[in-house]
């Protein structure tokens, strides 16, 4: 199925009754060259890059529920590459560039909208820190602009500029950042990977690993039988510790719940993605009109995919501090996703000590924007057995070596590192 203006017109004139499934719901074969555990954005992107960039097409993606039912469907859809630390800067920009060509690459409308991401600053010290980050970005060829108060007022006249405690002083803007349609990203990678022969297998929960006498992984045990594999890649952020434990591994990760919220639909208000620098609050407005926003993790270990009231209150207070006029807007929905909180706040993409098992984990609450980049570098690792140069610092052993990438200085428990 190839999508174009012509296929759209054809379908429209036949009353939209003849659309075909966009990807194949496959049954497991006995053996694959590569088995990827986790049918979220990262797993499906990895499969697509394996098939399209690295010529490995005998690939299966195993998903315990339905594809995109985990964090790929639970995020706030923000894409950006405004990072400042070596290791992150290049990787997220690689990902950003892949977002910019994703729709052409996949032949799928993922609704990538480069509406800009602005981080507001509220003090002189924060302005200096943002100026430094912006300069780091520009040195690395990434767009960044430091806006002063007048420019922010012009762009977002609706903000509360009279906040005495946390006055808006300006912001760091990345115009190429923005949002994408999260479900469409999942379906787009499924569509393109499936067309290249990748088997996407749903309702197939991995229950264990097959190992040979030397300990090498030979495949996976699943709820749909044993599946042999040359290599196994894990892309199960949120459940990484549980899956890794089946192979006897302990990871530097805690699973925490992060909530997200959407309000009832209102007329177009917020032109971009915006963050409140004096608290933790980020917001954009969906095409349907809802304000999509979020804040901090709840702060306790959880696999429950739902959060509690104190964080909801805190997030809404952040929103009110910036935009007091949203106080009368009703909250429509609220949900939680389970984050792999790594101990330095940065991801892990590496081989594991178990031969044949590869790890893609620890995305904390920044996994969505990384989807295409993560797919490419993980496919590179699986295909070539070497780290991609833009992901060379996301090593599993960096904690032991003291080479942590503490961009924000937060992990699961910031007081421990």
């Amino acid at each position, binding site marked *: 199925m190839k999508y174009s203006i012509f296929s759209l017109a054809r379908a429209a004139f036949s009353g939209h009754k003849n659309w075909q499934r966009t990807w194949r719901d496959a049954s497991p074969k006995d053996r694959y060259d590569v088995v990827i555990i986790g049918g979220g954005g990262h797993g499906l992107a990895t499969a697509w890059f394996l098939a399209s960039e690295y010529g490995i097409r005998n690939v299966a993606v195993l998903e315990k529920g339905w594809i995109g039912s985990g964090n790929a469907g639970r995020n706030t859809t923000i894409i950006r590459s405004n990072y400042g630390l070596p290791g992150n800067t290049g990787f997220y920009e690689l990902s950003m560039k892949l977002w910019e060509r994703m729709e052409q690459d996949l032949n799928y409308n993922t609704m990538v909208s480069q509406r800009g991401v602005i981080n507001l600053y509220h003090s002189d010290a924060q302005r200096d820190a943002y100026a430094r980050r912006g300069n780091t970005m520009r040195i690395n060829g990434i767009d960044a602009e430091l806006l002063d108060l007048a420019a922010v007022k012009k762009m977002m006249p609706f903000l509360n500029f009279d906040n005495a405690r946390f006055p808006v002083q300006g912001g760091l803007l990345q115009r190429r950042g923005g949002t994408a349609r999260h479900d469409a990203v999942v379906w787009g990678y499924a569509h393109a990977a499936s067309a290249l022969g990748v088997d996407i297998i749903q309702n197939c929960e991995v229950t264990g690993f097959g190992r040979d006498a030397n300990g090498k992984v030979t495949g996976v045990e699943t709820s749909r039988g044993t599946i042999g594999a040359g290599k196994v890649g894990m892309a199960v952020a949120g*459940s990484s*510790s549980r899956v890794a434990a089946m192979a006897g591994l302990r990871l530097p990760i805690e*699973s925490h719940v992060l909530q997200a919220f959407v309000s009832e639909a209102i007329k177009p208000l917020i032109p971009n993605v915006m963050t409140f620098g004096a608290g933790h609050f980020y917001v954009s407005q969906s095409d349907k009109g809802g304000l999509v926003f979020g804040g901090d993790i709840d702060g306790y*270990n959880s696999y429950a995919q739902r959060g*509690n*009231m104190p964080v909801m209150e805190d997030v809404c207070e952040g929103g009110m501090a910036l935009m007091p006029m949203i106080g009368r807007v009703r909250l429509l929905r609220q949900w939680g996703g389970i984050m792999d909180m790594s101990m330095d706040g940065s991801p892990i993409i590496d081989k594991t000590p178990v031969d044949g098992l590869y790890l893609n984990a620890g995305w904390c609450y920044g996994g969505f924007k990384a989807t295409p980049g993560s797919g490419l570098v993980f496919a590179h690792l699986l295909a070539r057995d070497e780290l991609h140069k833009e992901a060379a610092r996301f090593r599993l052993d960096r904690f032991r070596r003291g080479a942590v990438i503490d961009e924000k200085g937060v992990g*699961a428990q910031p007081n421990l590192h």
Partner: protein
Amino acid sequence: MRIVCPFCGERELGEFTCLGDAKPLRPAAGASEDEVFDYVYLRDNIAGEASEHWYHGGGCRAWLKITRNTLTHEISSVEPAAGVGARQVAK
């Protein structure tokens, strides 16, 4: 979640801070690098019933040991963490 503090009674979650798994013990001075690495960075990250340290910062400021299910958030026991407070409750 609401937590029944042994000193203050039932209070809302916002008064408490979670430190995490209560099982790891700080290695003795002179412990090997492996032991320290394990303590600082590695986690069991239990899915199910786990024992955790929580701090009642918005109340009596006592450290508590809470048994909680990470799959359901159900709390099955709250006791004072070992220390002066625990001895007071034991009286």
